[in-house]
């Protein structure tokens, strides 16, 4: 019966007047295979970011477990502890939140070849609260060679200011993502993603300031941002199985937004197992972006234009990252017991950011606008223990 319906549909679909029908037929054709839920596992991680005068570290715990044959649930607890003072804090002598705690819960429901996912996330700081709800659907088709996923998320944030208890602003974020994963050959897997995100509300960081020429020196005022932002990101990534047991990975992503920022990054990686226990992973990533339309390191006057920012993340810069990861795996062989496999991993990435139009305003002995350009190096370390059960 299904074959007959498909044959009749093909008559319509092969008619070039019906390109949409062609597309739909492509989506539903092929012998369908069952999708699978993610594996049951638990991870306990220590993470650390150390760079630019700031150290942010803390624990993270992620547990995922099937509760029935077709439902899997997950929960994550994550903490950022912030110490030190970034260049922004040193220039403006302003305070930042010292701790951020995040909780995530999620559930996946498997229905034949479809997985429906729901999630909720809460992030809390003494001056920032964020709640995010997400919904996704993923479908395997074409003999299990293709997976299409659509997801939507909505976030409601409340922005505060530790130095002003009466300060409270709202921000709303909506996210739409389309993902297509395709088995290209028996050794090559590709993934294409388009992701649009819109923000409305208070998008500033309330502590950050812009600077402007004031007599022979410079003065600072609170930044002024637009109240909307829409961004588009498109990524292609792939993994290729080498002629021996190892994998080569690549990624290219392009980004643009309504603030005038264009960015791209590329990543090349190589994963190499050694005997049954060790997995070595190396990667190199390059990122580049140009400044937002309303960014300047030094504005000519205090009210030069409607929107003014001096956030270094909105300037023109590059980020070069090189990373290593090593994992040691133990297969317990206890397939009928509670623990099937365990691993210990250490990952270390070194980031180097070179800013092209953000100057080091701590050099107060120099005329504003003639200070040296800022740069920062950061070490990003993850140490984690994983268990599959």
């Amino acid at each position, binding site marked *: 019966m299904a074959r007959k319906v498909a044959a009749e549909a093909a008559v319509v679909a092969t008619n070039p007047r019906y390109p949409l029908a062609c597309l739909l037929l*492509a989506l539903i054709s092929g012998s369908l295979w069952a999708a699978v839920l993610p594996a049951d596992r638990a991870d306990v991680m220590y993470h650390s970011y150390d760079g630019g005068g700031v150290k942010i570290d803390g624990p993270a715990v*992620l547990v995922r477990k099937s509760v029935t044959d077709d439902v899997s649930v997950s929960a994550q607890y994550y903490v950022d502890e912030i110490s030190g003072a970034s260049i922004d804090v040193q220039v403006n002598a302003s305070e930042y939140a010292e701790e951020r705690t995040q909780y995530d819960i999620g559930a996946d429901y498997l229905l034949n070849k479809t997985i429906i996912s729901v999630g909720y996330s809460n992030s809390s700081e003494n001056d920032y609260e964020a709640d995010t709800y997400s919904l996704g659907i993923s479908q395997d088709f074409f003999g299990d060679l293709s997976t299409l996923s659509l997801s939507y998320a909505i976030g409601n944030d409340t922005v505060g200011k530790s130095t002003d208890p009466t300060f409270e602003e709202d921000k709303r974020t909506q996210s739409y993502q389309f993902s297509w994963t395709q088995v290209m050959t028996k050794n090559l897997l590709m993934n294409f993603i388009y992701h649009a995100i819109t923000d409305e509300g208070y998008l500033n960081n309330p502590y950050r300031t812009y600077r402007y020429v004031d007599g022979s020196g410079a003065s600072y005022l609170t930044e002024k941002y637009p109240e909307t932002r829409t961004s588009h990101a498109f990524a292609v*990534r792939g993994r290729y199985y080498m002629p021996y047991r190892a994998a080569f990975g690549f990624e290219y992503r392009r980004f643009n937004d309504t603030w005038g920022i264009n960015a791209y990054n590329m990543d090349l990686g190589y994963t190499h197992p050694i005997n049954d226990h060790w997995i070595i992973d190396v990667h190199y990533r390059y990122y580049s972006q140009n400044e937002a339309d309303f960014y300047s390191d030094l504005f000519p006057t205090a009210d030069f234009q409607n929107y003014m920012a001096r956030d270094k993340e909105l300037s023109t810069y590059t980020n070069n990252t090189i990373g290593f990861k090593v994992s040691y795996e133990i297969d317990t062989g206890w397939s009928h017991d509670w623990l099937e496999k365990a691993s210990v991993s250490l990952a270390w990435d070194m980031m180097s950011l070179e800013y092209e139009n953000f100057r080091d305003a701590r050099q107060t002995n120099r005329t504003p606008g003639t200070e040296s350009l800022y740069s920062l190096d950061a070490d990003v370390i993850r140490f984690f223990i994983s268990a599959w059960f």
Partner: protein
Amino acid sequence: MPSLHSNKWFQALPLGGLLLLLALGGCSPIQPWVKPYERNNLADPIMQFSMDPVESGYMHHVYQAREAARGAEGGGGGGCGCN
């Protein structure tokens, strides 16, 4: 850097091309070309886009904090929506 700046046609090209390929796929009797018994290599854990979700989710968060670009990070990502 300005050389990247957008040409909308160029940006639409990859997605348009993919949709076209997909549409053509629906119009011709293409069968799945990698058989189930040929998927040993693809099933190897080293072929996962995100081998360790807790760790890759964290890295996405670090990049989102240090870079203006956001989204399309792939599996394990998502971030928290915060600054």
